[in-house]
């Protein structure tokens, strides 16, 4: 019960935040945290729950972004539909990438998915006609304004970031809710069982292949949606979006927050995104400190930040009861 109250309080705080925070810069960081929260939470379902250690999650992110951006530039598709289209192509890609990894386990899955991501990155870099190559795709249209009967206009033209913030907040909450429902359902139980003992579950007569492909496409759908939002928010995409660097972020956020908890990755995303921006003050030492703080966090909270916070709350509770 306490968990739910805390959770509700956090959500309300997130919704009320723009009333107090007027800084566009801070909003920008919050938006980026939201995008990463979707990415790492969906990756957590794949890796933390199912035990498929994929290193290709950033590829789905890039795929969603490029699909949506190219469709809106070349065919004038509305970015709102682009969000869905990006998600669907990413899910399709997830099926394709999922196939060769079916018989593999652990680090083998990691390298195959990473290889797929790098192949995509290379295609993106070398297919200059379509993707503009390494210079990146720019001039991606922003989200069109929403007009509700001439009374209310929600514009995304860039004058303020508040509307983007609410949009990503809503997308994030919906994604987390759906992911939570999946994890809490029977399907989630199967996924956990696959992680614990694939042989046993296969012997029970369940179709492991089906579930693996399913979880691959579901999680990549969310990554695709996040990528598509990112494309229309930043309005610039480069092949680097597919690569190893964003994957490292997703990985670090999920594991620092606590793998296999769904909320942990969200906490991790906010923590690391803010940390990265906060450390800008230190100039060239920024990333050195960033790495050091990651190391120290792991050394002192080996169970993840979320679990550490729970333990901390429990201790306070005990102290109060005494």
């Amino acid at each position, binding site marked *: 019960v306490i968990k739910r109250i805390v959770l509700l309080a956090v959500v309300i705080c997130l919704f009320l935040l723009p009333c107090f925070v007027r800084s566009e810069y801070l909003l920008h960081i919050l938006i980026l945290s939201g995008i990463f929260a979707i990415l790492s939470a969906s990756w957590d379902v794949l890796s933390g729950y199912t035990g498929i250690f994929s290193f290709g999650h950033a590829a789905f992110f890039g795929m969603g972004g490029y699909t949506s951006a190219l469709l809106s530039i070349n065919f004038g598709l509305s970015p709102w539909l682009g969000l869905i289209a990006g998600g669907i192509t990413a899910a399709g890609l997830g099926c394709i990438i999922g196939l*060769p990894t079916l018989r593999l386990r652990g*680090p083998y899955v990691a*390298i195959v998915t990473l290889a797929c991501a790098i*192949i995509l990155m290379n295609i993106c870099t070398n297919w200059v006609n379509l993707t503009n190559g390494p210079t990146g795709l720019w001039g991606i249209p922003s989200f069109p304004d929403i007009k509700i009967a001439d009374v209310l206009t929600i514009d995304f033209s860039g004058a303020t970031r508040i509307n983007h913030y609410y949009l990503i907040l809503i997308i994030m909450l919906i994604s987390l809710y759906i992911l939570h429902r999946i994890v809490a359902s029977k399907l989630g139980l199967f996924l956990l069982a696959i992680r614990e003992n694939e042989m046993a579950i296969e012997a029970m007569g369940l179709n492991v292949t089906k579930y693996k492909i399913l979880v691959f496409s579901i999680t990549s759908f969310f990554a695709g949606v996040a990528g598509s939002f990112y494309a229309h928010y930043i309005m610039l995409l480069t092949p680097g979006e597919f690569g190893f660097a964003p994957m490292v972020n997703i*990985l670090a956020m999920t594991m620092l927050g606590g793998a296999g908890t769904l909320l942990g990755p969200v906490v991790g995303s906010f923590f690391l995104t803010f940390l990265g921006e906060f450390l800008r003050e230190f100039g060239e030492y920024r990333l050195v400190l960033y*790495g050091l703080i990651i190391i120290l966090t792991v050394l002192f909270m080996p169970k993840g930040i979320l679990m550490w916070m729970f333990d901390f709350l429990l201790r306070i509770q005990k102290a109060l009861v005494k």
Partner: protein
Amino acid sequence: MFNLELILQQVVYGIIMGSMYVLMAVGFSLIWGIMDMLNFAHGEFYMLGAYFTYYILTFFGINPFFSIFLVMAILFVVGIFLFRLTIAPLQNKPGWQNNTVIVTLGVSISLQNLAQIVFGERYKGIERYFNETLKFHGLAVGVDRIFIFALGLSLVIALWIIIKRTRVGLSMRAISQDREAASLMGINNNQIYIITFGISGALAGAAGGLLAPIYFIYPTVGFMPLLMAFVVVILGGLGSVEGAIYAGFILGIIESISVLFLSSAWKDVVIFMLMILVLVFKPMGLCGIKKV
């Protein structure tokens, strides 16, 4: 265009590059097999090796042969430090595999950026170790490449002897088979871990130092060698040193031949496609042992 000589030439270059991949990969593979963790800071051993070689050669002008051994000694110590400071505290705590991944990623980020501050972000290069070229029936191979190959190969053979013929190697193999049983037989696991990390660092440092005259040196130079080590180890089968040796040479040859037929921009695509294909048919790699 594709005459036999050209292909042969590329094969020779491929074998030479392959020996470097093997050097990178066996260290990565040893750490996986013995400690059950992936070391994402492995590329940084390479980077440090290259930088140390650069500074030793430009400031002290020692013979390249000795400088490589000096660099290996330094990297041996660096590896031990890394283990002591970041990996050892995580032992016997939950989430070992996840935590070691993030810790080594953190080390990698820190070291790369520290290198950028300390060594500067300008590309550095050193002169070739030797300038002569050997010609043999139309094949031309630089003496420096032969030097690289000879040293790389002898290091791999030395490691092979250590693993198969010495007590330390016996302990290593015992731990990789069953950690608890090995420890019950009186093996000091911690000591072996330290030695493993040291050896792995020294070998990657040697690869960095040997390749320094051929490629430029910059702070993020370690990424490709890390990726290649990963590919080689997976192709060969995790934890199998023999597999890593085969796979390293095969990969080197395939890579240099594919450059002949395709532009080098698609080189990585070819390698990764092939790797995926191999894994589809042999999910445990070429010589993988099934680990439960």
